[in-house]
């Protein structure tokens, strides 16, 4: 499936042979059989004709997969070049911030209210930032998108079909980069950099383990498995998060250049 994506992008296999093989090999070893869920019926992603002149590029992946670093570098590249871009990230809307904070501090959130609150937050960003910018002809870069909710909230026990419906108002991205690092690498990156894992971040509400580090690892493992199931259904471009930062960034820029007509976002010539 990795091959397919690359062919689709018009890349020569030769060029990314190493990365591809290591990626495919990795998949085969770690996930010999992806468990089928009750909602395993293939999810049809609507191939709707875009109603706007803008474009949407999103990065997804578990914590510590390197996605934010890569999107930051992509953003810097485009910013320096003077392109019409806007960067947006998950969970940043001030409108629902107080509710999210209250819910998290007092641990009031259930899987459903956790999911709905984040959906409300996303809806605000979508309706007031992302959609107007897409209609206004911007290249929008999103650090995490609806797939974060699909992977994470399903790991908490929300029905995938219910989640798909909940976020059906969101525009489908032009490119979704899925950054994938082995669980240990990702978990170590996070645990090393943080004095204490937060309650919901570690999935403590699921009662998996009283040890936050253990709970976090199991929770991330479930999320990772949910992400993997979306590679095909949602046309993710798989990015190996263990590849050197600058090499990976080069690839990312190349894919963006191939798939999106950057000329339309370029600074106007005088």
């Amino acid at each position, binding site marked *: 499936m990795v091959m397919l994506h690359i062919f689709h992008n018009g890349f020569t296999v030769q060029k990314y042979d190493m990365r591809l093989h290591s990626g495919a090999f990795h998949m085969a070893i770690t996930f010999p059989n992806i468990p089928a869920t009750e909602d395993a019926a293939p999810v049809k992603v*609507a191939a709707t004709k875009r109603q706007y002149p803008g474009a949407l590029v999103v990065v997804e992946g578990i914590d510590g997969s390197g996605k934010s670093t890569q999107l930051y570098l992509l953003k810097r590249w485009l910013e320096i070049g003077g392109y019409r871009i806007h960067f947006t990230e998950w969970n940043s809307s001030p409108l629902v911030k107080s*509710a999210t904070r209250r819910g998290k501090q007092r641990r009031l959130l259930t899987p*459903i209210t956790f999911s*709905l*609150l984040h959906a*409300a937050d996303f809806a605000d960003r979508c*309706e007031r930032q992302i959609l107007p910018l897409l209609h206004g002809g911007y290249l929008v870069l999103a650090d995490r998108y609806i797939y974060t909710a699909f992977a994470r909230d399903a790991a908490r026990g929300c029905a995938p079909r219910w989640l798909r*419906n909940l976020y*059906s108002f969101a525009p489908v991205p032009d490119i979704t980069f899925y950054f994938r690092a082995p669980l240990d690498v990702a978990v170590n990156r996070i645990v090393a950099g943080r004095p204490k894992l937060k309650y919901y971040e570690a999935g403590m509400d699921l009662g998996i383990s009283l040890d936050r580090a253990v709970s976090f690892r199991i929770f991330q493992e479930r999320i990772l498995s949910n992400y993997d199931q979306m590679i095909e259904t949602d046309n993710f471009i798989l990015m190996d998060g263990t590849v050197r930062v600058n090499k990976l960034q080069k690839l990312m820029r190349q894919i963006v250049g191939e798939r999106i007509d950057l000329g339309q976002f370029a600074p106007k010539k005088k």
Partner: protein
Amino acid sequence: MTRPDKTNGSSTTPNGGPAMQAKKKVRLEVPSRFYGTPLPGVRLEELSGTLFVLEGTDGSGRSTQISLLTEWLESEGFAVQTMGLRRSFLVGQDIDALMAENSVTRTTLSLMYSTDFFDQLERRILPALRSGLIVLADRYIFTLIARSAVRGIGRDYLHGIYEMALRPDLTFWLNVRPEIAFDREFKKAQTISYWESGRDMSLSNDLFQSFIRYQSLIKREFEYLSKRHGFIELDGEGSVSEVNRVLRKRIASHLGIRSTHYQPSHALSHLWR
């Protein structure tokens, strides 16, 4: 807006038989405790209480009836829990704040209301039903669906979100004409609220016109919902005591209470008009 999945709530006729002939009509949903996917972690056999819902626009007399019914049920020895919109601890006050601003968009507001609803369902209603209480809901998912639907959010989308809601034992719809609701609301508050007149929808600059048109749209949604979900429609324009008598009769027969006699206490006698 992308069209949501068509899969919601359409699987009620496993053999495709009996419902076929009623194709033209709005399909009445087959009763089960949930509308679709059950809420995670709920065991239905634990729920020994009863859920009654009163729906209707502002000025339909819902709150008055709920106060009276609470007193009556308590006098009959039933413990009562109530719920209503924007009363959740989680986001109730945040919705108030959002509505005071003019920057909130329809989907965000709709989803904040869903959060408010499910927070109350999971933290207030379900515990009450597990303890065998009577829950009286001052509005339920139907108002939330109607308000969002008239603002252009897909009905399938909305039913999809609320498919995890618990189906009420009985849903009463206090139906009043928009003109009557206007009179009552104006009498109560001396003005008409921004949201109840649907001013965010730019229906008319004239507040009366805006209120009537908005409430008429809501009413049309309720007519559809009433058929789909089997509401018990009551004439909300009748006197408080008459509406209350009908409500007591239906609730009493559902709960197996023999006597429906009730005279409000001194504290509530001012409601008895």
